[in-house]
């Protein structure tokens, strides 16, 4: 489970609130996996929501970054594009598989959850928190340097 803490916060309320939505839904997916309560329909709904919400959130965040002229803008955008492309490919893979078994569904969901949530957490800590620096909410020394090759 991803725990919300100061280490994840950018200090920019509108960005943090949207990050919390993504984290809450990744945690919900993990809860379903751990409790063995996941169904195909549930997974479909969660993936679609996470994908569409991430897409919307990235757009809002990029607008905010552009307004401040933050040095992280280009890298942030590049990472967002990669994530949405990768997530879309995974979603298409999910829809293309027709012979789901319970075991296969849990295995696939666990792998995808791990991959997508770990990326998101790294991106928030290593990239998004720089937005907090640009907006005067965080000190530069509080934020690790950006990871150029986050894939």
């Amino acid at each position, binding site marked *: 489970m991803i725990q919300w803490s100061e280490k994840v916060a950018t200090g920019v*309320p509108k960005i943090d*609130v*949207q990050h*919390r*939505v993504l984290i809450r839904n990744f945690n919900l997916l993990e809860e379903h996996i751990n409790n063995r309560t996941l169904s195909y329909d549930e997974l479909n709904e969660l993936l679609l929501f996470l994908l*569409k*919400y991430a897409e*919307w959130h990235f757009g809002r965040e990029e607008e905010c970054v552009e307004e401040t002229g933050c040095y992280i803008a280009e890298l942030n955008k590049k990472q967002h594009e990669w994530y949405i492309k990768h997530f879309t490919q995974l979603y298409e893979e999910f829809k293309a598989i027709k012979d789901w078994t319970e075991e296969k569904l849990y295995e696939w969901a666990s792998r995808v959850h791990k991959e997508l949530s770990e990326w998101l957490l790294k991106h928030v800590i290593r990239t998004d928190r720089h937005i907090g620096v640009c907006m005067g909410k965080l000190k530069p020394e509080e934020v690790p340097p950006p990871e150029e090759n986050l894939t």
Partner: protein
Amino acid sequence: MTDKKGWWILVDKDGLIIAGEGRSKEDLEYFAAVITFAIISLRKAIREEMGSEISEISFKVPERGLVFHVLSLKGGNLFLITAMPESMPLGMIRLKTKEIYERAEKIVESLGTRKG
């Protein structure tokens, strides 16, 4: 306020709460962020398909006995989301929604004054 009394939130188009009451701060924050995303998506779809703007959205959550109303404020930059008990007489729902809307308008006005 509980679900029996209803709750409301005033949010901006990023899903950030400006004011609200009736649920825990965490719950209101989550509703605000998610419902705003849904409103923005719906507004975009209607605009693209029909070339028109929406001003009001209503929906029900029967299991919780709630009726939701979404109203646009400040030229569509803010949304007022109210959740009222279905069991409440229609006249009372209208009256309460009007009351909340007026409070929200005052909050919006004071925001404008502060910014100005």
